[in-house]
């Protein structure tokens, strides 16, 4: 039996090395001389199928009354839509890299990685009739374009807001100071997002309070700026913070009174507003600005159904689909037409989410990936990488 086991193990190892060794020679270089990989010169016939990676809630089929933008698409184009919901950005990146999907909706911290690695293709926006109407503030941003080429179409955007329990925090705060300095009323009941990306929010506070640090971009921090941000986060942790990983935890915390102030998305404020037994909450965009997220539909370079994907991208920029999708999630719509439609199902939605108020978005830093080259033209600067951020967060939360 001993020999049998040893032989089996060797055979397995040999199989693995053979299987894996082959794939290392693949590079991410695009095929073709002039046209980048995945580029569509003209729209062809729809393939009949579409496989998408989505954030939960981004492709509704009528489970909630009045919110269905997938069935009309299937009826119109004949592309049957199959969706897989991702748990977080990295899960989404992994799913796309598996090669079994045509595309998905990605936030800035995933989209930048996918563009850099060549996993998603530039989009020929001339083929998309609805693209022209999209707000200019969403086009050719750092998170959805590379070398001046758009790599996807916007789905919606949202800020991270400051939310508080109006019974406990009686004067409405206008600054993030409330969660950084703490008061007797809120200490021990502060709600903070449990992810390394929150370090950027600390950087935003430092941009206002310590301009001598010279932070230009809260996601690209050098040694000194990063150390200051971590220091600030440690002080905050010592005030008594309860970190939330899923939105439901935060909603439950505010509803039970365990949490009275914190960072949130409009979505949670809507959920709490709809709960008559929960304490009343208010949200505000603090004066210093905030971090935010902007999600983009991107197509895989090796998509099996590129035409269906283009049709979907165009569909998701249409007034009805985008209006429904952004009202459902509580984020800002991507065009005036979508806003007009959103008014009919949720009056005041676009005003509440500042969909067309570009000045509002000036003070919002969309989620993106920290990079060693600081994502700037200056070759001399070096910044902390994504891995450094993850490790620092582990250290902050693990001790």
């Amino acid at each position: 039996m001993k020999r049998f086991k040893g032989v089996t193990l060797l055979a397995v190892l040999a199989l693995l090395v053979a299987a894996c060794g082959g794939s290392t020679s693949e590079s991410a270089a695009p095929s073709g001389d002039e046209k980048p990989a995945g580029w569509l010169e003209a729209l062809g016939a729809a393939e009949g199928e579409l496989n998408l990676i989505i954030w939960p809630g981004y492709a509704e089929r009528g489970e909630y009354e009045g919110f269905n933008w997938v069935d009309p698409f299937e009826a119109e184009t004949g592309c049957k839509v199959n969706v897989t919901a991702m748990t977080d950005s990295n899960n989404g990146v992994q799913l796309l890299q598996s090669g079994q999907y045509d595309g998905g909706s990605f936030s800035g911290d995933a989209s930048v990685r996918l563009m850099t690695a060549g996993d998603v293709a530039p989009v020929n926006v001339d083929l998309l009739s609805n693209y022209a109407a999209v707000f200019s503030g969403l086009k050719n941003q750092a998170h959805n374009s590379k070398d001046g080429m758009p790599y996807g179409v916007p789905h919606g955007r949202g800020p991270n807001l400051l939310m508080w329990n109006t019974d406990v925090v009686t004067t409405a705060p206008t600054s993030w100071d409330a969660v950084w300095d703490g008061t007797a009323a809120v200490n021990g009941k502060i709600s903070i997002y449990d992810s390394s990306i929150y370090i950027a929010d600390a950087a935003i506070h430092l941009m206002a309070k310590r301009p001598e640090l010279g932070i230009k971009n809260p996601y690209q921090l050098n040694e000194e700026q990063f150390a200051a941000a971590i220091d600030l986060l440690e002080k905050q942790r010592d005030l008594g913070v309860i970190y939330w990983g899923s939105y439901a935890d935060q909603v439950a915390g505010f509803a039970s009174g365990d949490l009275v102030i914190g960072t949130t998305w409009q979505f949670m404020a809507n959920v709490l507003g709809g709960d008559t037994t929960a304490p009343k909450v208010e949200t505000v965009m603090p004066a210093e600005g905030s971090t935010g997220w902007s999600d983009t539909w991107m197509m895989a370079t090796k998509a099996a159904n590129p035409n269906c994907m283009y049709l979907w991208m165009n569909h998701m920029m249409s007034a009805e689909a985008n209006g429904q999708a952004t009202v459902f999630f509580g984020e800002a719509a991507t065009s005036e037409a979508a806003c007009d439609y959103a008014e009919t199902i949720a009056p005041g939605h676009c005003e509440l989410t500042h969909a067309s108020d570009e000045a509002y978005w000036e003070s919002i830093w969309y989620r993106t990936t920290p990079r060693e080259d600081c994502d700037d033209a200056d070759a001399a600067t070096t910044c902390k990488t994504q891995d450094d951020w993850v490790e620092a967060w582990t250290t902050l939360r693990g001790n």
Partner: protein
Amino acid sequence: MIRRITGWFNRHPRATLGALLAGPLGWISIVYLGSLLILLMHAFWSKDSFTGKVEPFNWTLDAFAQIFSNPVYFTIAARTIGIALLVTIAAAAIALPVAYYMARIASPRKRALLLVAVTMPLWASYLVKIYAWRTILQTNGLLGWAISPFGLEGPGLTEIANSWLVLTYLWLPYMILPVYAGLERIPNSLLEASADLGGRGWITFRRVIFPQLIPALAAGSIFTFSLSIGDYIVPDLVSDAKFIGNVIYDNSALGSFPVAAAFSFVPIIVMIGYLLFARRLGAFESL
């Protein structure tokens, strides 16, 4: 034709054995061990910080260097192992009287009912049980409501003791059942002999019953210890502590696979050591 084949297999018993085992062994070695091997190999591969992709077969010890250079990883590992040990001890402390009552004192009917009662929590979903404990342990949850007449507040969801409590609750059936089985195996004649020699209740328990139970306790402890050391959902939902599993999950979720894989060596090595220790105590005969 068929008879020829069966005849051949009859004359070559080793081939018969090989053919029969090929399926399950193939499954274990290729699917299970193979995927485990790939996972662990990630610990020795580098990661391109620009694209964020792991570079397979690019051997390096960077991930281990990171684990050893930052003391927080040791803190987290120590915390996890500590809680796992506390869970084991608490589960054993509760299991002994319960199993003793079930095995030696209860009538057959009561015993059957108790067996059902002990195993019934296993019918419920793991997540449902944890969320039930959340509503109990919240600041103004069920526990808070019950102790408020004494002027006390509920523990809230930041206490690490919550993890200890919930983990003990979850794995208790896995400790009670082996101990119960172990107690059943002790012949009555042994206890009579001990009584004849002048041993009263506690002495008999300490010097006759307990030594016989050590294999059973070791077997039960394998479950409670290994399940606790790997758990990351309980500490995430009922406390704000980070366990080994949380670090591995957080790192995987953000793409740092080499660090996650390197840190996963810790529970593997700990469990190998623990299993060797449990084997010494005779746990595997009593599973």
